């Protein structure tokens, strides 16, 4: 059966569970000599209260071979390490269970009734095992003076027969109210016949406490003289001999007595007959503690609380006694041997917790649910404590056994895992002295709950789900963000299109990524090296993330533009143009939306038939599919129908739109793709030279990116890679590329199949009139992508305002203008920064300045006008004029109220980023500010604050565990979690 449990465990594969499997297989492994070493931060041996710190248990053949802090582990031993925060205690021993509880015998006393007969070794005692209980006392029956004999058994185990620890653990009975309802007894005559008169029920003792004691006395007599006819008559033929058998075996008497009178009576009785006595329940034992101690009786205290049930009345009448929970404490003080039980084995730990009211030391409480019951009920030979030679029954906890919120991680029996916290519910709780939220707030102490990849709770004390892995430490902070790194497109400087999805090229984390994460950088914002006029996309992702779908945080998160130009005079031109076009585009949309807001759609009734007509025609398209269904369901299916119609519609009229667009101007959809040729005459009178041009229009039928190459010896000795725009409205072509003598630019307009315009290179400028020689562009086309973002076009009846065409290139800017997206702009010199910021402000964008070497010189101009500044790696700037004046732009900007962030410009986040922050701190930046710059502010700047940057409920589970205050150079990252998964050291 055990095997089955293990097999099941094999299903759940949390990191913890894996360990469990190892161990499981380990326990069965015949490899090596079958040694198995179990480690944990603290191991309670319970034997004379010893506790091992970072101790080891050596197990072989299900038995404990050695236990200590410096155990020599054989090298062929399987190692199971539950980590520094786990606590191991002996498998708990439940002194009460109802697993074998059966109907009581008809007679007052029936010592021959054995609980063992009710023991089902085939049952899976999952409930108890989940509570860390490995051994249980089986109660034979209840509500009788002597209900039978109880047994001690293990709740799982390979060796069926070894599971019975003690077949005769106690004579189980009661003299409290429960036993006073013994029914009258009648034995049907056999065989039943007319001449056999009917018997009648004879009353049986006890009906009162006195009666109970009398009955006990008489039973003892019966035990001495089993043949005594009167007693046989009274208590049954076998009562005497059965009891005698038990007494001969010195089985202790376990009698439940609640009220003090009952307890007194029992004590006296046991004293008189020198019987080993265990008081069960013993609610009112407190005031009798000393007498009990004197009598040498033991107590199994049943905590008067039942979990999972409605609260009970505590007695309302005057002399009703209220339940007390501090009995064990008092008894232990008086020197009584005490075991504690709860309403069910599952709640044993909890029972011990509430029973330790009244000043019971944790050690004693733990003993009361492990060794004490084992000793009282004769199972201490094999269980109850972690002593060499005893069974390797373990209860692995995620914290101090008696602390609230501690729960069971795993349960072992005979050196094998028999229960394991369910993977699905496995969560991680961090308990630290200082919890740095990231936005400046700090919790001292702080706790944090990670679950399903996210941060679920943050606070001074958070909930501890059952089976949660608890990690304790000095401090924790959010994973750091590398605000800008360069994308490793094999070092190529080629700039992908604005609407190119960088996420297409990320791969799941490798060893390097994990290393980086373990140094604190969990999120990296990536940009291509360099940027075209149209701007380049930026992506934020988590290099070390395990699940690919959670790897990308945002793509694109921002658009990167370049303000400066080789030709300083032209600095910002491209950007300005772009912004202008974007503005126009933005306004188009704005007015469309405004119009749409005013417009009131016609009543739906009018369009129902239309919808159905469409449906019909839709049917033709889709074949006969769903015909019947629709026919029957039109009315109730209407919404669905319309949805279908909508997108069908959309497809259609987007097509039709194109057509309409093209009709007025007879311009063919793709006028310029192909090969062009011209003779260019160099002004310097040099001979005419051939100009060969190959162009390709990315998207037919709209203003779109153009790319290609140009060969012209005059302009460049090498083939010039071109990029640029073809504007359909103006019919203007503008392409440029870097040639051997510098930038080559072609500005031309398209008229009657000709391109006429100027070719500028190396400061020179010549006219060019190009003829098309072919319409082929013989290069493998780059796959076209759909626009990243696209509003679902609404269904359009007449009179509806017309939706402007969507331009993927300008979308990011439009969103930025609405404050929904980030624009990163490379700009360094103060004289550029000012106009740049102004230009953006004009269109209502707060840009993020990148580079910004001289930003600190124009701080006051930036405050409130930029979203943030990504300073280049130089932390310390110095003023040429006054050579010794070192300053730290980071500090300057931040103190002025401008968000800053650190960036590596490396490829996948850099290990030294935190050091850079530390360096900034060393040079005058506030640690708190530096931390913000590494986390919350970086996230804000890149507008990914909804997922990362802070330790806050709902955000991704990116957490770092530190051994000191963040940004202290001596501090290092101990462990790291990305999306709630711990990052394994490579």
């Amino acid at each position, binding site marked *: 059966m055990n095997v089955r449990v293990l097999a099941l465990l094999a299903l759940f594969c949390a990191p913890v569970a894996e360990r469990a499997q190892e161990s499981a297989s380990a326990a069965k492994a015949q490899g090596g000599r079958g040694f198995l070493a179990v480690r944990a931060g603290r191991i309670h041996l319970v034997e004379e209260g010893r506790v091992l710190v970072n101790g080891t248990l050596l197990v072989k053949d299900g038995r404990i071979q050695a236990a200590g802090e410096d155990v020599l582990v054989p090298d062929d031993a399987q190692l199971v390490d539950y980590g520094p925060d786990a606590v191991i205690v002996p498998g708990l021993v439940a002194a009460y269970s109802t697993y*074998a509880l*059966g109907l009581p015998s008809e007679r007052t006393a029936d010592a*021959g009734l054995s609980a063992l*007969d*009710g023991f*089902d070794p*085939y049952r899976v005692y999952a409930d108890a095992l989940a509570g860390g209980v490995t051994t249980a006392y089986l109660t034979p029956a209840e509500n009788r003076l002597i209900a039978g004999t109880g047994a001690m058994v293990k709740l799982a185990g390979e060796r069926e027969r070894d599971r019975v620890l003690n077949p005769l653990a106690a004579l189980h009975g009661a003299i409290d109210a429960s036993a006073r309802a013994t029914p009258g007894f009648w034995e049907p005559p056999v065989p039943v016949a007319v001449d056999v008169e009917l018997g009648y029920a004879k009353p049986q003792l006890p009906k009162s406490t006195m009666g109970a004691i009398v009955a006990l006395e008489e039973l003892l007599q019966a035990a001495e003289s089993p043949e005594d006819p009167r007693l046989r008559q009274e208590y049954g033929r076998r009562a005497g001999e059965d009891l005698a058998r038990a007494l001969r075996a010195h089985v202790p008497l376990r009698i439940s007595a609640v009220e003090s009178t009952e307890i007194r009576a029992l004590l006296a009785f046991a004293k008189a007959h020198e019987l080993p006595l265990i008081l069960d329940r013993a609610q009112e034992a407190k005031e009798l503690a000393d007498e009990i101690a004197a009598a040498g009786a033991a107590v199994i205290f049943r905590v008067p609380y039942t979990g999972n049930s409605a609260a009970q009345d505590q007695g309302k009448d005057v002399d009703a006694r209220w339940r007390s929970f501090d009995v064990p404490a008092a008894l232990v003080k008086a020197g009584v041997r005490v075991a504690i039980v709860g309403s069910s084995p599952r709640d044993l730990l909890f029972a011990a917790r509430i029973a330790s009211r009244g000043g019971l030391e944790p050690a004693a409480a733990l003993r009361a649910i492990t060794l004490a019951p084992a000793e009282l009920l004769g199972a201490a030979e094999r269980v109850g404590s972690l002593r060499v030679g005893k069974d390797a029954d373990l209860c692995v906890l995620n914290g101090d056994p008696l602390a609230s919120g501690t729960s069971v991680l795993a349960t072992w029996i005979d050196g094998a895992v028999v229960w394991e916290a369910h993977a699905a519910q496995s969560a991680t709780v961090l308990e630290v002295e200082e919890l740095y939220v990231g936005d400046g707030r700090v919790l001292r102490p702080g706790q944090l709950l990670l679950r399903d990849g996210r941060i679920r709770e943050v606070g001074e004390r958070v909930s501890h789900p059952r089976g949660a892995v608890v990690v304790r430490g000095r401090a924790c902070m959010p994973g750091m963000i590398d605000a800008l790194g360069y994308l490793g497109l094999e070092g190529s400087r080629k700039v992908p299109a604005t609407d190119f999805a960088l996420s297409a090229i990320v791969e799941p984390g490798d060893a390097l990524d994990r290393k980086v994460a373990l140094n604190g950088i969990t999120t990296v914002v990536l940009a291509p090296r360099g940027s075209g006029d149209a701007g380049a996309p930026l992506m934020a992702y988590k290099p070390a993330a395990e699940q690919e779908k959670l790897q990308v945080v945002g793509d694109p998160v921002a658009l990167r533009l370049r303000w400066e130009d080789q030709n300083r005079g032209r600095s910002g031109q491209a950007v300005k143009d772009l912004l202008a076009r974007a503005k126009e585009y933005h306004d188009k949309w704005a007015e469309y939306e405004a119009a749409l807001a005013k417009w009131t759609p016609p009543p739906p009734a009018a369009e129902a038939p239309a919808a159905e007509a469409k449906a019909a025609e839709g049917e033709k398209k889709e074949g006969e599919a769903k015909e019947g269904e629709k026919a029957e369901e039109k009315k109730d299916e209407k919404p669905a129908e319309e949805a279908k119609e909508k997108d069908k519609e959309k497809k259609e009229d987007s097509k039709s739109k194109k057509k309409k667009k093209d009709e007025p101007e007879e311009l063919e959809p793709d006028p310029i793709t192909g090969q062009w040729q011209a003779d260019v005459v160099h002004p310097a009178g040099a001979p005419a030279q051939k100009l060969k041009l190959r162009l390709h229009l990315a998207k037919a039928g709209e203003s779109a990116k153009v790319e290609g190459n140009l060969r012209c010896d005059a302009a460049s000795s090498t083939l010039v890679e071109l990029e640029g725009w073809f504007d359909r409205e103006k019919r203007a072509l503008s392409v440029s590329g870097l040639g051997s003598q510098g930038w080559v630019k072609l500005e031309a307009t398209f008229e009657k199949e000709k391109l006429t315009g100027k070719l500028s290179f190396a400061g020179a400028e010549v006219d060019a009139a190009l003829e098309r020689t072919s319409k082929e562009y013989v290069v493998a086309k780059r796959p076209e992508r759909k626009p990243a973002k696209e509003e679902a076009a609404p269904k359009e009846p007449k009179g509806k305002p017309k939706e402007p065409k969507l331009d993927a290139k300008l979308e990011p800017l439009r969103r930025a203008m609405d404050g929904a997206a980030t624009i990163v702009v490379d700009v360094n010199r103060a004289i550029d920064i000012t106009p740049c910021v102004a230009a953006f402000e004009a269109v209502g964008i707060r840009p993020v300045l990148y580079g910004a070497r001289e930003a600190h010189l124009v701080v006051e101009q930036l405050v409130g006008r930029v979203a943030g500044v990504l300073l280049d790696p130089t932390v310390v700037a110095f003023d040429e004029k006054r050579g010794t004046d070192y300053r730290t732009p980071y500090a300057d900007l931040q103190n002025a109220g401008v968000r800053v962030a650190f960036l590596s410009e490396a490829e996948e986040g850099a290990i030294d980023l935190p050091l850079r922050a530390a360096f900034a701190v060393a040079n005058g930046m506030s640690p708190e500010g530096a931390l913000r710059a590494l986390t919350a502010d970086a996230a804000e700047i890149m507008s990914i604050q909804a997922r990362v940057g802070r330790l806050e409920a709902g955000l991704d589970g990116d957490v770092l565990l530190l051994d000191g205050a963040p940004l202290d150079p001596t501090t290092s990252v101990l462990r790291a979690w990305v999306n709630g998964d711990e990052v394994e050291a490579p």
Partner: protein
Amino acid sequence: MKNPKLPPAARALCAGVLLAVGHADGKLVIEAGRIVTQAGPDIENGRIVIENGRITALGKADEVEKPWDAVVLGGPKTVAFPGFIEAHTSQGMDRANENIDVAPFLDIRDSIDPVAYYFEDCLRYGITTVNVQQGANCVVGGRGMIVRPVGMTVEELTVRPLYGLKLSARPKNGKSRATQMQALRYAFDDLKHYLEDLVEKERDERGYAKREALFQGRDLEEEKAQGRAMGGTAWKVDGLDLIPRGALDEKFAPLLDLVEGRYAAFIHCADPLDVAHALEIARANGFLARTTLVIEEDCWKAADLIAEAGVPVVLEGALVDVRRDPVTGEEQETFVPGVLHDKGVRFALSSESPSTRAPAFQAALAIGRGLERAAALDAVTKVPAEILGLGAEVGTLEVGKLGNVALFNGDPLSVTSWVEHVVIEGKPVYDRSKDVRNKQLLEGVQPANTAPPSKVDAPDPEHADEAGKEGAQDEKKEDEKKEEKEEKKEEGGGKGGGR
């Protein structure tokens, strides 16, 4: 039993019908397209010759010659199969349980009902030998008997009287496992005490037992008058030879026989832990060798124990055990015969299984779930025969064995084939074409002079024997009453709907 109540006369009629066919003379020949002997390879176009109840010749049609005066059954399309054997059932009785815990003195014969539907059904399924034991709601039950499912009186049915004793490890109503076990132990403990007392008294005052016996009016003839030293292997009571066996109180005598190994024991186990208990009792009292466990589906978990003890089992539970796992909460299916087979447990399938009634169908289901064909067929023929100590008599088709044959009209394991004829000890006792109740089962046609549900009644001259006639008279009234009732009902329905 789920069978509907029917006036006795009616039942008498049907049984009568089935028997009526049965009075052929001593010789019978069965021609079959295929003979499944279960003793060797199948025989194509075979022929079986049965004389005075036993198979005298069997083989290919052209090799075995046909006695000129023999009745001939079957045909080229039919498949002959050894009659199925029911290793254990508590059907065919009225009320299968006694309320007294320990009642070994009971005898099934007093409760068995020759014309119970169950026995009819047996024939329909091709079952030719049945072991009837008391129900499982007991501690120590009465003594059972092995019967053939055809006959008007218990005598006609009887194959082996007083065969086997029923015990139950499953708690009787009103008992828990512990009290049940206690009761079982005490039962044998009491026996021991009783015998010891008796011997003691006998020694004190000679002739005590005899006097008692005479006083209680027991007969003490021949071997009942002799005493005999106690047999058996487990425990002994010395001086038992002093006491004439006839003098023993019949409350205890059968138990003594059990302990001495003169009875087979059928111990019912509902849950795996019962198995250990059953074996304990059997071992402690020395009848393990003659013990058969009657198990329900969950008991497969204890297959190792069973295999270790080497006792056979009768599977009365479902073929597939469906349980929720307490850890995962997932539902798991276990094919029980598969487990038993793998663990090397000898097992018989039983028509008590809720999966279905017909042994052939059960064997088929077992095969469908991966049990070897041979193992599945043995489980309804050979194995039960051995369990009942009839291995030499029935279970296979071999020369010298009893002529118990089930004739199918196709592959016995196909859902579409039916038992056409059943032959028991050379007598054709069942003919589907004349099986009126089967007609009803199949077509809803109501047999003559029996209770509704159908309103159709086409009296069938075939069945008009005395029983039938007298049945007819008092049946008519029944019929009319019922019809009136139906009329009313319909009116109720009709009026309501019609308007």
